[in-house]
């Protein structure tokens, strides 16, 4: 036996196994709730099992991908970050040229009846590329500059699509990575202000006046109920129908009759109508448990890049979930963001589960022989 210490994969410590299983359990619970929510939200359609069946299939694919990603050593993933990043960015550019436009947004590749949204899958290379930049640059000034440039490069194609909701999630993810990699709070504050200023300028210059209309409707939904406040009022009415325990499972009247996009952008409100506060609160708790589990895993992980990835990726997912929930509760203006693992959408489901698989992989501890 050599004196060199060899890092080998040892049988997993018990708490690694437990936290890995916890991620699978959370994904399973949210997936189950997703199928029930989508079924209820489309009960009055010609075939309510159409969307539910497709979501179930995507969940199966997602669990397979999640398991495969969890088995992949994170060090191998780390070695291939440049390739993964280049591929992801290439897809974002390609969709601008060859993508399909849906509801004014050119963000999907279509293959028959299958729609693939590359911006969902690119969340993983986005975070990985930021982690790589944080690892490779030693000077804090250079690190800040390169990380901001990376964030800008990734979000530029998204704003061209235009998908402002996903852009906000990418920006939130970028801010989380910046914070965890050691940026000063004052610098972070300045970056947030600059983002806000750029966003406002883009609204005026780009002529995206609908964003201003949405803001007006958000600030006073009852006054603009017939126009920009309509969606927000329907959120509130839908949630009110559910009360504490919800309506019956096949009796989600408001989700079917009035709530726009009840199976995707408004799925939390639709879920609350069906199962009430007692059924919707566990969804929030699930995401918090996910956050706590990743917190524990990240602080135990010795590899700096791995722990940065675990923390950033998890909280980017949770940020998206909380943005969606806040929009449905009228705490934020409507953004068109889905609820990870619950809203209908194959790209969102599979990419989130792939991310969870990589989080499990990055959380595994390697012990010296």
């Amino acid at each position, binding site marked *: 036996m050599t004196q060199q210490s060899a890092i080998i994969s040892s049988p997993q410590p018990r708490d690694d196994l437990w936290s890995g299983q916890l991620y699978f359990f959370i994904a399973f619970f949210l997936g189950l709730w997703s199928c029930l929510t989508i079924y209820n939200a489309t009960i*009055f359609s010609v075939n309510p099992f159409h969307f539910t069946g497709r979501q179930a299939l995507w969940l199966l694919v997602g669990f397979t991908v999640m398991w495969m990603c969890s088995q992949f050593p994170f060090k191998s993933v780390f070695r291939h970050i440049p390739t993964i990043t280049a591929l992801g960015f290439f897809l974002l550019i390609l969709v601008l040229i060859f993508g399909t436009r849906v509801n004014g947004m050119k963000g999907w590749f279509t293959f028959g009846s299958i729609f693939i949204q590359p911006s969902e899958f690119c969340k993983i290379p986005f975070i990985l590329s930021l982690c790589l930049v944080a690892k490779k640059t030693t000077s804090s000034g250079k690190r800040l500059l390169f990380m901001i440039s990376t964030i800008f490069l990734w979000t530029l194609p998204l704003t061209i699509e235009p998908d402002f909701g996903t852009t906000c999630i990418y920006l939130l993810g970028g801010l*989380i990575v910046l*914070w*965890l990699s*050691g940026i000063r709070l004052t610098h972070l504050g300045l970056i947030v202000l600059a983002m806000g200023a750029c966003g406002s300028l883009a609204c005026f210059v780009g002529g995206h006046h609908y964003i201003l209309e949405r803001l007006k409707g958000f600030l006073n939904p009852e006054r603009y109920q017939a126009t920009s406040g309509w969606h927000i*009022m329907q959120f*509130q*009415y839908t*949630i*009110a*129908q*559910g*009360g*504490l325990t919800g309506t019956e499972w096949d*009796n989600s*009247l*408001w989700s*079917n*009759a*009035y709530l726009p996009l009840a199976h995707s952008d408004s799925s939390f409100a639709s879920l*609350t109508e069906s199962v*009430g*506060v007692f059924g*919707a*609160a566990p969804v*929030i708790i699930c*995401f*918090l448990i996910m*956050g*706590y589990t990743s*917190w524990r895993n*990240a*602080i135990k992980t010795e590899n*700096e890049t791995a*722990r*940065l990835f675990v*923390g950033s990726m998890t*909280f980017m997912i*949770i*940020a998206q979930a*909380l943005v969606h*929930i*806040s929009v449905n*509760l*009228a*705490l934020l203006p409507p953004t068109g963001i889905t609820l990870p693992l619950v809203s209908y959408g194959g790209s969102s489901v599979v990419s989130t589960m792939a991310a969870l698989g990589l989080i499990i992989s990055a959380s595994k501890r390697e012990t010296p022989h």
Partner: protein
Amino acid sequence: MFKRRLTAVLIVFCLWALIAAGKLVHTSVYDRGRLLDKSARQAWRESEIIPPRGKLLDSEGKVLAWTEIYFDLVHIGALETPQTRATLLNIVKKVFPNCMLSPVGSRRYLLKRGLSPDEIAQSESLIQTIPNLMIERRFERRYVDYPELRPLLGEVVVENDMMKGVSGLEKKYNEQLVGKPIKYIVMLDKFGNWVPGTWRPITSISQSVDYQTDLNLSELLRKSGAAPQSSNSKPTQAKP
């Protein structure tokens, strides 16, 4: 440092989740009554169903006058430009190639008259997607094919969607024949369609009552000064 920063992120997200949970409880519990009232005003509608007018029968139960129900596809609302009218017609023609757009009164257009049950089912997809397109019920009064009996039986006119007798037996027994409208409540969706399973009556359901004469058909014809013919009832067009 990493641990402290990650803990700060966790705390911030926990606080955010707590605020969201608080808003959830506020909307679902404390503000629920007010929101349910507002939503009810938006969605629930009260209206009435007018039952078909009762039949006139002779003493042997032969039908002398009866009401037939038809369903028409109509558009209620202004179609100001020829382009709007052409667009609507083209969309409806995809389902009913033989339909026409005929103005009937102010802001009403008839697209197809006398829909069959299959055509009513086919119209559903159009009604759910085109605002102000609806199926309207139309009553027509029919009489037995003895013109000499008409003065005795009488005539009806339509006022406020209800038939009203203006002469003869139709007028004399109008109150009995017309029945009572049934008041109901129903939830409408964003297109103004009824939401399945939400209809319920507010008043008791009562039908209109038929009127039976003391004389049979032959005696009625003798009374009106005509010779009795075949007792088979044939439909004739009633005057609206």
